[in-house]
């Protein structure tokens, strides 16, 4: 075992009782990756896990407490007994794998549906990157390296990306989301969509995304884990309004 508790590639001891009490999550408000894990824990009826809200603003994601679980100093930092899974999509896949028959099924068995869940789930990570490139431009790029032309290009790329998702949601309705019934694809992507609207995305220009957003807002797992606040962007909350 390394000092971070990360087991490396050797076999780790068997995980004790599969209960939420042996799970803990260090998280930050307004972080789509953290939100994904929380939605999954709700969906799999694993409420009762230990959790601690940390502040990005205060740099708490770089604290010793986090580094012990996640040497990268990032949130979420998730443990289940001795198993540590810090990448959000990985944690969601892990939870579905271990608790498949508990709570809601997040990955269907049938080939066509399953393929679509995996495909949209992975495309959701491209959407995440493109959103971050715009919303957190000032955080990601040092002042001397910033260019209006670069931000403009990132916005155009994001706009094209969002139009793709608008297309994927042509037939969105209650019970019919990114890949049919609510699935891991929605767990990964919905937080991004909420993030986009929080930062000013126009519901008028993206009506299907807006419908998706409002339909799922009421889903218990999403309602229960809704971010108490969102991390601010130096560009303010309307950075996406012109897309």
């Amino acid at each position, binding site marked *: 075992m390394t000092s971070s508790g990360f087991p490396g*590639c050797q076999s780790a001891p068997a995980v004790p009782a599969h209960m939420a009490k042996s799970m803990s999550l260090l998280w930050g408000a307004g972080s789509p990756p953290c939100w994904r894990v929380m939605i999954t824990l709700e969906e799999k009826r694993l409420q009762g896990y230990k959790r601690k809200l940390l502040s990005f603003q205060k740099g708490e994601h770089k604290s010793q407490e986090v580094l012990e679980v996640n040497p990268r100093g990032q949130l979420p930092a998730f443990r289940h007994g001795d198993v540590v899974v810090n990448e959000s999509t990985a944690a969601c896949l892990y939870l579905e794998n271990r608790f498949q028959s508990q709570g809601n099924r997040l990955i269907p068995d049938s080939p066509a549906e399953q393929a679509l869940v995996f495909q949209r789930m992975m495309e959701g990570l491209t959407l995440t990157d493109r959103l971050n490139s715009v919303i957190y431009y000032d955080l990601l790029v040092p002042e001397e390296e910033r260019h209006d032309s670069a931000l403009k290009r990132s916005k155009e790329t994001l706009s094209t990306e969002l139009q793709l998702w608008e297309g994927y949601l042509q037939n969105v309705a209650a019970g019919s989301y990114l890949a049919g019934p609510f699935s891991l694809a929605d767990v990964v992507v919905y937080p991004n969509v909420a993030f986009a609207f929080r930062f000013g995305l126009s519901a008028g220009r993206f009506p299907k995304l807006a419908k998706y957003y409002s339909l799922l807002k009421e889903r218990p797992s999403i309602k229960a884990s809704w971010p108490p606040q969102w991390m601010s962007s130096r560009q303010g909350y309307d950075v996406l309004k012109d897309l």
Partner: protein
Amino acid sequence: MAKDMTLLWGSGSPPCWRVQIALEEKNLQGYNQKLLSFEKGEHKSKEVLEINPRGQLPAFKHGKIILNESYAACLYLENQFKSQGTQLIPEGAAEVGLMYQLIFEAQPLAQKIGEVLYYNWKVPEGERHDSAVQRNKEALKEEMKIWEGHLQGCGDFLVGKSFSLADVIIFPVFAYFIRNGGSEERYPNVAAYYKKLRDRPSIKKTWPPTWIDGPGMGTLKDI
């Protein structure tokens, strides 16, 4: 089964290579495949766009089912063909957790390699900065050190004692790093892992054809 599958791919692309390795491991040889050229822009051809509107490779079809994300294709193949070929998702909780953790940690790894290798291609001349080039190199160095650490004390595989999706997805990235000049002296654990797995049948058989002709560019030699 394999006869209903089609893969459009490009040589030397880790995402394409992953799918090829997975198909071999699951005993799905005999799939239809077509090698396309990135240099000639064939990834943006109508043939690709019809399967993948993003104009990217791999573009994979199984009957009417389409999977263009390499991780999605690999997860699908393992789940749908669990009982044949190599078992790619382990049984135990610790191994499964580690496997998923590593495959998603591999995303920043691949991204950082791309930031260095493709800087001039991605960033227009007027927006380039030496400071950015330096930053990207430092970030990749730090990332490679993390992976050196992950491989410390490892046997032949990234997770436990068997070949898994972690190896399917990550081996091509290490091979790509080394191919582009990555130092085997500075990263001995990565190099050892690479050397151990490169002769695995599924990997040897699908080795990028354009890599056989000669050495690659040494762009990453200072990392």
